[in-house]
């Protein structure tokens, strides 16, 4: 951790740059016809060579989804989404690449431009020591997963979920939908029907995953929804750190991203899940951008297990996301560290749920919301202590920072305690960047924007230090860049 703080301190002066991931990649694509019906669900399943049980599962989900309605309790507003005007499947044409050598060079170029290392040799020869294995998901398919053999040596399975369905059906059957039931909510049902790709991770008993795992999601095709599905299982005593990054081209239309991520930690297992979400946020007038409607939940099923969510959310036109922990096992631990930054006309309604079921379970929530421009930023959190959760503890801290007078910050904490022995603490603050802080920085030679970047990064430090080092540096730059034009 000390090393991370050092890095934070020594990171290069924040370069001013616009959304630099907004380019489009020209590549031949196959897409299914627009709209959603049973045939589309069947086509997706067939395209992925799925066994019958998987198709069944999807069709059931589709049927459920048809009966459900979009939730409207979040503090976000958008014109109705026309689900018939979306593509539900888009992938580069031709047969799926079997190895990196077969991946379209255009795609490799794109990942290179995005700074995502897909070349194992370069990574191995390079100086950066802690290597990261990457699963690269492009629109509806995984195009490459690196370091699979290295990982397999320690028994770790890291592969596209579509492959896991075929190759590891028992694991998938046991755990898929076991944390987030198909009909948990409108978007999880939709995802369950049409999910295209995402990552599958299984860390066997007693194994500490030898490298960081990461998935990089890229939306490229127009009018296409991305429905990623990720499932991570850490067996008894296993541990893993997983990172997720996301970008998309700049487009005038809104694009839908409805992901489902499930984590399962058995006895003494630890899962650390970090996200830097930088989907295209739309332009300064609120045109375009991703609708990010995501369901993420982890189950601490075993005793002494631990699940830790860290998220830095700077992108998307709308973010609707509540990474949660179900603390079933005795002494299990749930953590949620979040930075959500909104600017211009972005809207974020995000937070977490900590459900305490086991004895002596504990949870920590640190949420930092930054609102600038005309944006709206809501923290929504639930801490629920069930009757059996004797000795449960929660600490919540929710801080909001406002930049300018036209933005909004809202905190909506729900606390339900059904066990007298539980201890729940909640602290919340709202502040503005003080004039004297800005002047102090400027009198030392910092531009107003650099000063804001510095102060905002300081405000988020408690969360940023939870991120793996490379991500922390990236996130710190991102925060400054995302606030461009917010002052002056």
């Amino acid at each position: 951790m000390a090393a991370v703080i050092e890095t934070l301190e020594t990171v290069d002066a924040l370069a001013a740059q616009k959304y630099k991931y907004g380019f489009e990649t020209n590549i031949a694509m196959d897409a299914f016809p627009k709209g959603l019906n049973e045939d589309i669900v069947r086509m997706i399943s067939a395209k992925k060579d799925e066994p019958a049980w998987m198709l069944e599962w999807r069709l059931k989900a589709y049927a459920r989804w048809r009966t459900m309605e979009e939730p409207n309790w979040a503090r976000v507003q958008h014109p109705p989404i026309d689900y018939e005007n979306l593509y539900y499947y888009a992938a580069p044409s031709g047969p799926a690449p079997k190895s990196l050598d077969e991946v379209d060079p255009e795609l490799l170029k794109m990942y290179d431009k995005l700074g995502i290392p897909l070349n194992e040799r370069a990574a191995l020869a390079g100086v950066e020591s802690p290597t990261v294995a990457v699963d690269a998901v492009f629109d509806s398919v995984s195009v490459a997963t690196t370091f699979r053999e290295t990982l397999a040596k320690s028994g770790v399975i890291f592969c596209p979920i579509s492959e896991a369905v075929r190759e590891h059906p028992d694991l998938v059957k046991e755990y898929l939908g076991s944390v987030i039931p198909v009909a948990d909510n409108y978007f999880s049902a939709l995802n369950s029907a049409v999910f295209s790709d995402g990552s599958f991770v299984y860390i066997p008993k007693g194994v500490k995953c030898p490298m960081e795992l990461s998935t990089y999601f890229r939306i490229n095709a127009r009018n296409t929804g991305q429905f990623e599905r990720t499932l991570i299982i850490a067996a008894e005593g296993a541990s893993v750190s997983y990172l997720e990054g996301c970008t998309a081209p700049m487009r005038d239309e809104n694009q839908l991203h409805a992901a489902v991520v499930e984590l399962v930690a058995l006895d003494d297992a630890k899962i650390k899940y970090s996200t830097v979400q930088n989907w295209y946020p739309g332009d300064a007038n609120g045109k375009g951008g991703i609708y990010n409607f995501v369901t993420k939940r982890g189950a601490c099923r075993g005793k002494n297990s631990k699940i830790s969510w860290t998220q830095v959310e700077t992108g998307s036109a709308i973010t609707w996301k509540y990474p949660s922990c179900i603390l079933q096992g005795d002494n299990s631990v749930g953590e949620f560290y979040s930075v959500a930054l909104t600017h211009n006309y972005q809207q974020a309604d995000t937070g977490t749920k900590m459900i305490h079921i086991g004895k002596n379970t504990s949870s920590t929530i640190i949420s930092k919301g930054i609102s600038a421009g005309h944006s709206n930023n809501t923290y929504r959190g639930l801490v629920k202590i069930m009757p059996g959760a004797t000795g449960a503890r929660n600490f919540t801290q929710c801080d909001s920072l406002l930049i300018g007078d036209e933005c909004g910050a809202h905190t909506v904490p729900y606390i339900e305690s059904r066990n007298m022995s539980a201890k729940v603490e909640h602290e919340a603050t709202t502040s503005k960047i003080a004039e004297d802080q800005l002047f102090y920085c400027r009198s030392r030679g910092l531009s107003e924007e650099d000063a804001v970047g510095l102060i905002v990064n300081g405000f988020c430090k408690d969360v940023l230090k939870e991120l793996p080092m490379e991500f922390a540096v990236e996130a710190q730059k991102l925060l400054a860049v995302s606030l461009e034009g917010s002052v002056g």
Partner: protein
Amino acid sequence: MLEIKNLSASIGDKEILRGVNLVVPDGEIHAIMGPNGAGKSTLSYVLSGREGYEVTGGSAFYNGQDLLAMEPEARAAAGVFLAFQYPVELPGVGNANFIRTALNAVRRARGEGELDAVAFLKLARTAIKNLSMPDDMLKRNVNVGFSGGEKKRNEVLQMALLQPGLAILDETDSGLDIDALKIVSEGVNALRGPKFSALIITHYQRLLDHIVPDYVHVLAAGKIIRSGGPELALELEAHGYAGLEAA
């Protein structure tokens, strides 16, 4: 050279500076003394560009540059440095990171290359040693939880690293213990040279034993009412401001 001519400034409708005239040539150190509320800090803020102060008349040039027309950061790049009477806390912002960011911003503006973390830390460690400050001063968050004296020393550390051409020290001696007063004074004296000048705002003659000024000015009710050599400070120490204002 700093040239202040007939400078007037107000906050809201309250006139605070009422025609300040002051010239500080390069290589000189001038002390400003004066009663509480006289406008000393106001003068320092107006010179460094703080918002909320309306200049109602007069001018301030530094090395021929019209300070009053420049953004605060441009003044810093031009070599102006203000050691705050009340240094500001920046939660979560590491001191080393802060000072390096500032130094590099100033270096960029001057067309000099930026310092990487390693080069900076080397410089900073030396500066810290020269000021007999504890090493952890760099690791802590800017001024957060610093004692009054530590905050003042942190201002001097920043000054030592930023190497300004014109330093304005606003009561940097207040709250310093006897040893710290010496160390801080040495820090200022170390910068002395033909290209360096300073305005030292203080209430106490004892600072001026360590940093011997070329001139001492008395600012009262927004005007400089008396100027003299270092002996003026001794006179003030003995008799206070009461007699002066009538003069």
